[in-house]
């Protein structure tokens, strides 16, 4: 009896008990579809984070005010302190001190209500320098960005994010040249930022008003020179770590602290991706583990039903043996049947997983990226489960003696 005949016999047997076969597959179906979705969700989350971080710019170092430790030993929360200043940004920008830093953009952000005519819009107001568009890899779609001279003179100009512009001004009208006011201070709109393009980064990148940092300080009534973040672009990807070392040494020295009491932190895009991914990975492993357990349960379900099937079809087995089926042929028949159940369950599971990957993003706002490798692995696993858990029932069927099998009622 060749493989094709064995396969035909197995499909006949599976089809003869459609409902039971489906129920048998159910465990594997659920297991495989959850594996596909978990892996897809994990991958999707990683891709999203990677997108968000790479959208920040390239060869970027991000200096944030770190947690400060007060004399009483109480550590403030991350980003709670105002230890970074404009002076720090200026020293980082000094090529003699930090030769590997190309451009520096200190950022001070707050929130304010913008008024244009009758329209009101509350958004984040970001004060920065002229280097910001280059450092953050952004461009203006209309008008221009402000110049260093305007930063120095604290000119009342503003560059709006794409969403902010469309909220404040009716579409046909170009916002460039219009006035918006913040707390009664009129600002001239000189440009509109191009949309950041990546939807996964959310709308906040497109909803902001960028001002010269000097003007922003004045508007918010801030008298300190504290900044919330300093973005530094290294001269190239290969000098990133050198720039890191130089900035670290500079700031430690300038703030008079040691590495253990540092009141700032420097992160690179890679380190950000890594941190975000390690969280995701834990979650993926956890969910994947649960999915794997459900696969195991599914496999045991297959074995259970195959054992029942062997008992139930004991007379059929006896007859087939009487008609010339060798033990090896019987074993193969039941093995193929079990692996067919496994594989069918796997295929249905993959289909459900793929359908889920289209439905899920709209329900939970999480992207799902499917990988061919994961799909193939899932199918391979389901086949292996069928074979693995089919071995015992199949060898039981093969060991039956034809006389006993024929006699049983």
């Amino acid at each position: 009896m060749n493989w094709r005949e064995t396969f035909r016999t197995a499909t006949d047997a599976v089809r003869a008990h459609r409902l039971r076969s489906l129920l048998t597959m159910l465990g594997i179906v659920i297991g495989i579809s959850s594996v596909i979705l978990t892996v897809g969700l994990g991958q999707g989350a990683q891709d999203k984070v990677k997108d968000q971080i790479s959208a920040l710019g390239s060869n970027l170092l991000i200096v944030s005010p770190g947690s400060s430790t007060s004399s009483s030993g109480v550590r403030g929360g991350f980003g709670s302190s105002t230890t970074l200043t404009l002076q720090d940004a200026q020293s980082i920008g000094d090529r003699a001190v930090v030769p590997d830093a190309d451009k520096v953009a200190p950022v001070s952000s707050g929130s304010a209500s913008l008024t244009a005519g009758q329209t009101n819009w509350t958004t984040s107001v970001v004060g920065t320098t002229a280097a910001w568009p280059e450092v953050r890899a952004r461009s203006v779609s209309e008008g221009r960005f402000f110049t260093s001279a305007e930063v120095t003179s604290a000119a009342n100009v503003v560059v709006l994010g794409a969403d902010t512009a469309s909220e404040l001004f009716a579409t046909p009208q170009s916002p460039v040249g219009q006035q918006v006011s913040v707390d009664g201070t009129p600002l001239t709109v000189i440009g509109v930022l191009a949309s950041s393009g990546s939807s996964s980064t959310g709308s906040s990148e497109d909803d902001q008003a960028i001002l010269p940092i000097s003007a922003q300080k004045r508007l918010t009534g801030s008298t300190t020179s504290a900044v919330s973040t300093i973005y530094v672009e290294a001269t190239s990807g290969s000098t990133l770590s050198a720039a890191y070392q130089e900035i670290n040494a500079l700031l430690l020295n300038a703030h008079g602290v040691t590495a253990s009491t540092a009141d700032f932190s420097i992160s690179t895009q890679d380190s950000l991706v890594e941190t975000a991914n390690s969280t995701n990975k834990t979650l993926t492993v956890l969910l994947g583990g649960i999915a794997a357990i459900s696969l195991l349960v599914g496999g045991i379900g297959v074995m259970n039903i195959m054992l029942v099937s062997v008992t139930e079809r004991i007379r059929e087995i006896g007859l087939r043996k009487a008609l010339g089926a060798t033990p090896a042929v019987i074993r193969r028949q039941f093995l193929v049947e079990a692996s067919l159940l496994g594989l069918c369950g796997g295929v249905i599971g993959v289909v459900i997983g793929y359908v889920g990957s289209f439905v899920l993003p709209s329900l939970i706002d999480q992207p799902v990226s499917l990988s061919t490798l994961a799909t193939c692995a899932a199918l391979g696993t389901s086949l292996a489960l069928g074979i693995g858990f089919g071995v015992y029932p199949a060898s039981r069927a093969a060991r039956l003696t034809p006389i006993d099998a024929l006699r049983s009622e």
Partner: protein
Amino acid sequence: MNAPVVDLSGVRKTYRSGSIEFEALRGIDMQIAGGEYVAVIGPSGSGKSTLMNLLGCLDTPTEGTYLLGGEDVSRMTEAQLAEVRNRRIGFVFQQFHLLSSLPAWRNVELPLVYAGVPRADRRDRAVAALEKVGLGDRVENRPGELSGGQQQRVAVARALVTEPDIILADEPTGNLDSGSTEAVLGLLEELHGSGRTIVLITHEHDVAAQADRNLVIRDGLITDDRLVGAR
């Protein structure tokens, strides 16, 4: 007389269950020639079923030799026996033993599947065998759609399809009414007429009377071997 198809000499079969031994066959010598129609009769417990299992190569003797078509099958492994059963023996069982999920012709082709006959030939041969038993118009029917007599005729067709050395019928009429019994016995008679070797196992004397030769078995021994029938 032709060379015997079935040749048993000194065959014993002992069953062991724990410390208890039970000798079901206590030294059987018998020969069946090609083309013979033999009935083995005996009451239940006589060793009749054990003899049938040995003749059908479903079991091997504890002692003695069994030559089937000149081939010694008494010391074969299970896989070898399966091959011999497929090639040399056609079974007809009391309970028909048809697979209810398959149509008649696919039941009949089963032995050919295990013999490795190509698919195209199998259907032709199965249909021809069904025509021979008068069921040419029931080829696609499943066993559930056939009467008991028709089901047993499908089983006879299945026994015929491989052109075996012997047809072994174990109480073939045990589950049939008298009308169907006659039809099935008539069919066996017809097959015998066309030169087939038939071994019929029964406990009913009027069924055994259909055969040319009766072997009476009692307490594991053949007690009588006589020719019957008028022909």
